[in-house]
C-alpha cells in the first residue's frame, strides 16, 4: 500500500505550484533598481587573429554606459579549470588560458569579443553593431583526428599541439590486455561516433551582477547548479573577491542537465562590470547565444574491441577514444572522458582486463563538458553496442550473452579502479523482460510486418557511478575541489524546520523529497519542513547538484544534521520528562519514556530550546540548529536493464519508438513519482540523442545548428504512448555506505536509453535482411535508409 507521507510516499511536488502558476522566481525575474544591460559581441569567425577592436563609435551611442574589450580584463584571471588530468606519461594535461573576453585571437564562433553595457538591451545591441572588429581569419580545425595528426592549425599557439592529453587507463594493464586479444577466440570491433549535443535547458542562462559601494559587496544572481562552486571559482581565481564580500544566488533554475554546472565568462563579466559601472548589470542569453556559448556535451569518436574466449566469456575490452574539448577547457571538461568514462568500462560485466585510451583534443568549437550522464553514456553506448554486435556475430541471444558475463558477487572490484558495493543485474534483466513482454515480441513483429514495417527489439544494460564523490579519491585523480555536501537544519521555536542544503534543485523536486526525509525521521508533517537552497548567504558551503549526487550525498548530509538535531532534542526531552536520555524514544513527532505513558510533544521540546526556562543549561546550549558535512566513502552504482521496440518504415527509413521499458535499481527510493519522472525525462533525452539531436559544424568551424529549425529536440510524439513507456524501480539493492541506502536516479535514463534504441534499430534492419552492423546517432531517416541501401 502506498504511503501518504515520508520516505517512500509519492508526495506531490510542492514547488510545482509556483512553477505552474507563474510565481516562480527565476534569474530573469530579478530586476535591480537602476540596472543596466549587457550585450556581448560574439565572434562569427571560428579562428582568427584580432588585429583591432574599435569601440569609439559605439561608446558615443545613446544610452551606452561603457564598452569592454579583452584588454579590460588583462589584470584579472582567466576562467579556471577544475580538474587536472595526468596523461599516460605522467605529465599534466595542456591547459590553455581562457579569457573572459577574447584577447589576441578568437577560437570559436560565439566567443565573446566585446561587451556593451547600456541603459537598455536594445541600446546595447545597437551599439555593439557599431563596434568595428578586424580579424585576420585563420584556417579552423574542427575534425579531432585532423587536429591531432597535424599542427598546421593550432587552436592555441602557446601549446605544443592540439592534444590536451593522451590518457591511458589502466596503463599497467595495457600489455596484459593486448595479450588477451592475441589469445582471444573471437574479437568484435566497432567504430562509432557519440554525437555532439546541446543541453538546451528550457531556461537559457542569465546573470545579474550587483555591487554595493557602501559595503564593497558583490552579488551575482545566476542560473547555476552550484552557487558555492561559482563563488569559489569566480572569487578566488577570476576576480579576486574574497568570499565574505561575494554572494552568489541561484534562485529557481529551469533545468540544468550539466550545462549550468560550469563557471562562465558572462557571470564573471556581470560581477566585474557591476563594480566598474557602479550599477547592476544584467545579461539574458538568447536561444541562439545558448547554442554557441553553453558548454556542449558528448562528441566522442571511438574504436572499441571486445575479446571473448571459446565459451563466449568476455576476456578483455580495449578502446581508443578521441574526445572533443572544444576551444577551451570548460570547468570540469577534462574529467568527463576520463574518470567519468574510463572507470565505467566494465559495465555490468566481469571482464578481467580493460584498457582505455582517451585523446582529448582542442578544436575551434564551443567547449564541451558534462551533459546529463557525462562520460557514462559514452561508456555505456560503446560497450553495449559492441556486446550486441558480438552476439550477432556469434549467433547467440544478446540477453544470454549479457547474463553469462554479469557480475554476480558484491562487493566487486573492477579492473578500472572502482568497487561496486551492491547490485543484482539478473533481477533487473528479469524485470525488464517481464514488463516489456519480450515473449509477445514475435507476435508484435508479425503484426508490424503485416503492415510492411520492420520491427526490432533492443536490449541494453548499464551501470553508472553516481553520488559524486569521495573527496580524497577524486583529489588523487586530479579534482581541484572536494565533493562532499552540506546541510544545516534549523529548528524554529514553534517546531517548524528550515533545512539549508548545499544541493541545488533545478527541476529535481528536492523541496519535496528532501522534506519527506527530514519529516520522516522526526515523525512530523512534511509541510513543517522548508528546504532552502541556492544562496551562498544562507546555505553552508556546498558543492551543488550534478552526477546524480543530491539525495545520495546532499541527502546524507541532511540526515546527519537531522540526527544531531534529534540527539540534542532527546537531551532536552529527557530533562523535561525527568527521565534518562537513553530511555527517550522519538515516534510520530513525540518524545516518550520507554515503557511509560509519559511523553512530550516535538513542539514543546523545540520551544524549550529557545525559551530555556526549564532547560539543562549546564549541559547543553540553548537553540536547536545543527550542520553536517557528508563526504561519501564510495560512489553509488545505480544499474539497470532497458528494452526498446522500434518500427522502421523501409520505404523512408523513419524510426518510431513503439515501446520502451526500464528496470532500474536505484536502491531505496524516497519519492517514487519523482523518480519515475526523472527516468521518463532522462529516457526522452536519450531518445533525442539516438534519433534526433546533432550539433554540427562545417569545415570552417561555422556552427550550423543554432536554432530549433536545425537542432531537433525530442517532443511528445517522438516518445511511445505512456502505457508502453514503462519505468520500474522495484528492484532495489540498497547502497551499503550511505544512511538512506540510495543511489541516485537523475541520469540513468539518458545513460541507458541511446544504445537500447540503436540496438533495436539494428535488430529491425537485420530482421528485414539488411546486413547493417551499426548506425551512428542520430539515426535519422536519411541515415537509416542509406544504411539499408548499402
Amino acid at each position, binding site marked *: 500500500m502506498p504511503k501518504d507521507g515520508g520516505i517512500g510516499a509519492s508526495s506531490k511536488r510542492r514547488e510545482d505550484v509556483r512553477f505552474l502558476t507563474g510565481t516562480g522566481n527565476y534569474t530573469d525575474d530579478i530586476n535591480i533598481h537602476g540596472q543596466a544591460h549587457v550585450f556581448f559581441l560574439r565572434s562569427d569567425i571560428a579562428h582568427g587573429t584580432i588585429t583591432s577592436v574599435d569601440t569609439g563609435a559605439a561608446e558615443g551611442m545613446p544610452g551606452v554606459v561603457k564598452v569592454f574589450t579583452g584588454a579590460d580584463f588583462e589584470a584579472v584571471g582567466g576562467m579556471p579549470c577544475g580538474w587536472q588530468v595526468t596523461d599516460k606519461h605522467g605529465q599534466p594535461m595542456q591547459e590553455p588560458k581562457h579569457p573572459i573576453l577574447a584577447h589576441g585571437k578568437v577560437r570559436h564562433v560565439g566567443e565573446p569579443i566585446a561587451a556593451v553595457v547600456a541603459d537598455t538591451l536594445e541600446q546595447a545591441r545597437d551599439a555593439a553593431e557599431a563596434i568595428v572588429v578586424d580579424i585576420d581569419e585563420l584556417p579552423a580545425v574542427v575534425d579531432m583526428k585532423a587536429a591531432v595528426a597535424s599542427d598546421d592549425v593550432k587552436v592555441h599557439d602557446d601549446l605544443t599541439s592540439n592534444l590536451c592529453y593522451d590518457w591511458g587507463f589502466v596503463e599497467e594493464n595495457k600489455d596484459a590486455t593486448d595479450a588477451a586479444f592475441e589469445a582471444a577466440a573471437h574479437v568484435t570491433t566497432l567504430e562509432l561516433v557519440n554525437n555532439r549535443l546541446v543541453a538546451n535547458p528550457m531556461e537559457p542562462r542569465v546573470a545579474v551582477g550587483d555591487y554595493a559601494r557602501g559595503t564593497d559587496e558583490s552579488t551575482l544572481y545566476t542560473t547555476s547548479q552550484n552557487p558555492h562552486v561559482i563563488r569559489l571559482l569566480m572569487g578566488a581565481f577570476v576576480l579576486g573577491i574574497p568570499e565574505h564580500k561575494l554572494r552568489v544566488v541561484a534562485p529557481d533554475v529551469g533545468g540544468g542537465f550539466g550545462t549550468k554546472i560550469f563557471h562562465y565568462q558572462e557571470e564573471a563579466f556581470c560581477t566585474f562590470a557591476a563594480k566598474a559601472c557602479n550599477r547592476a548589470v544584467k545579461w539574458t542569453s538568447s536561444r541562439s547565444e545558448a547554442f554557441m556559448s553553453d558548454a556542449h556535451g558528448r562528441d566522442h569518436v571511438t574504436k572499441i574491441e571486445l575479446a571473448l574466449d571459446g565459451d563466449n566469456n568476455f576476456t578483455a575490452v580495449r578502446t581508443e577514444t578521441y574526445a572533443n574539448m572544444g576551444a577551451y577547457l570548460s570547468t570540469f571538461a577534462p574529467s568527463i572522458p576520463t574518470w567519468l568514462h574510463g572507470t565505467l568500462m566494465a559495465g555490468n560485466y566481469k571482464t578481467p582486463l580493460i584498457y582505455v585510451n582517451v585523446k582529448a583534443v582542442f578544436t575551434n568549437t564551443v567547449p564541451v563538458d558534462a551533459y546529463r550522464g557525462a562520460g557514462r553514456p559514452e561508456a555505456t553506448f560503446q560497450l553495449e553496442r559492441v556486446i550486441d554486435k558480438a552476439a550477432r556475430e556469434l549467433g547467440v541471444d544478446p540477453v544470454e550473452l549479457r547474463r553469462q558475463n554479469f557480475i554476480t558477487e558484491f562487493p566487486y572490484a573492477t579492473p578500472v579502479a572502482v568497487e561496486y558495493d551492491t547490485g543484482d543485474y539478473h533481477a533487473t534483466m528479469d524485470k525488464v523482460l517481464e514488463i516489456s513482454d519480450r515473449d509477445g515480441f514475435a507476435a508484435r513483429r508479425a503484426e508490424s510486418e503485416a503492415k510492411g514495417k520492420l520491427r526490432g527489439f533492443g536490449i541494453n544494460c548499464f551501470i553508472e557511478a553516481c553520488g559524486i564523490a569521495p573527496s580524497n579519491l577524486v583529489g588523487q585523480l586530479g579534482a581541484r575541489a572536494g565533493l562532499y555536501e552540506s546541510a544545516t537544519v534549523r529548528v524554529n521555536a514553534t517546531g517548524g524546520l528550515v533545512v539549508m542544503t548545499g544541493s541545488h534543485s533545478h527541476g529535481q523536486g528536492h523541496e519535496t523529497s528532501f522534506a519527506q526525509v527530514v519529516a520522516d525521521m522526526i515523525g512530523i508533517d512534511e509541510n513543517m519542513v522548508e528546504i532552502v537552497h541556492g544562496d551562498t548567504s544562507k546555505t553552508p558551503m556546498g558543492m551543488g547538484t550534478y552526477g546524480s549526487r543530491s539525495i545520495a550525498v546532499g541527502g546524507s548530509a541532511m540526515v546527519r544534521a537531522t540526527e544531531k538535531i534529534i540527539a540534542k532534542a532527546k537531551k532536552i526531552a529527557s530533562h523535561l520528562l525527568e527521565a534518562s536520555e537513553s530511555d527517550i524514544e522519538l515516534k510520530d513527532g513525540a518524545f516518550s519514556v520507554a515503557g511509560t505513558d509519559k511523553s512530550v510533544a516535538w513542539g514543546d521540546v523545540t520551544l524549550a530550546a529557545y525559551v530555556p526556562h526549564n532547560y539543562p543549561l549546564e549541559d547543553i546550549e540553548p537553540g536547536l540548529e545543527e550542520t553536517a558535512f557528508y563526504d561519501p566513502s564510495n560512489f553509488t552504482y545505480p544499474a539497470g536493464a532497458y528494452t526498446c521496440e522500434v518500427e522502421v518504415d523501409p520505404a523512408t527509413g523513419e524510426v518510431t519508438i513503439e515501446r520502451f521499458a526500464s528496470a532500474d535499481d536505484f536502491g531505496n527510493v524516497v519519492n517514487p513519482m519523482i523518480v519515475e519522472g526523472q527516468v521518463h525525462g532522462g529516457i526522452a533525452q536519450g531518445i533525442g540523442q539516438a534519433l534526433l539531436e546533432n550539433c554540427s559544424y562545417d569545415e570552417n568551424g561555422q556552427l550550423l545548428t543554432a536554432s530549433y529549425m*536545425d537542432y531537433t529536440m525530442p517532443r511528445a510524439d517522438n516518445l511511445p504512448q505512456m502505457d508502453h513507456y514503462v519505468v520500474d524501480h522495484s528492484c532495489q539493492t540498497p547502497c551499503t555506505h550511505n544512511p538512506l541506502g540510495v543511489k541516485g536516479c537523475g541520469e540513468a535514463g539518458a545513460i541507458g536509453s541511446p544504445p537500447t534504441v540503436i540496438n533495436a534499430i539494428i535488430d529491425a534492419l537485420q530482421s528485414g535482411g539488411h546486413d547493417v552492423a551499426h548506425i551512428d546517432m542520430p539515426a535519422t531517416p536519411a541515415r537509416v535508409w542509406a544504411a539499408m541501401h548499402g
Partner: protein
Amino acid sequence: MEMSGSIKIDADRETVWAALLSPDVLKECVPGCQEMTGTPEDGFAATVVQKVGPVKATFKGEVQLQDRVPPESLRLVGEGKGGAAGFAKGGAKVQLVEEEGGTRLDYEAEAKVGGKLAQLGSRIIDGFARKMADQFFEKFRQAVEGPAEDEAADASPDAPKKGWFRSMVSG
C-alpha cells in the same frame, strides 16, 4: 558550397566583357544591390540588402576583379559583412567563350557564410545561392542583350533587340 553554370548571351565577347567591368551593370544585376561604386582597377564597394531564410540584413562589401585577361576571363572575389547577421564571402571564375551568334559565359563559384547566416540558414543557403546566381546572370544577360523575344516584341515591334547596356555602349 560550390556551384557552376553557363549562360549564352546574344552579344559579342567584347561587349560582355565591358559589361562585367561596369559598376552600373553590376548594381543592376546583383539582387538587392542598393549601391555599387568603384572601378575595375580598385575594386567595387557594394551595399546589398538580402533576406536569407529568417535573416534579413544589409551587407556592406567589397568586390575585387582579379586575374583579368581581356576579353577572356577574370576572377571576382568578394566579401560582405552583415553585422549581427554574419558574413558571406566568395569568389567566381568567369570565362567568356566565343560561340556562333554570341558569347558563352562559364562560371565556377564558391561561397561561404558565417555567423547567424550559417547558424540559421545553412539548410537553405545552397538553394539561396543558386537562386542568387540565376537571378544575377539572367539580369546580366538581359542587361546586355535586352529582354526576351516576346517581351521585346510587345514593347516595340520593330526595334532591334538591344539591352540597355548595349544601347549605351553602341549608341
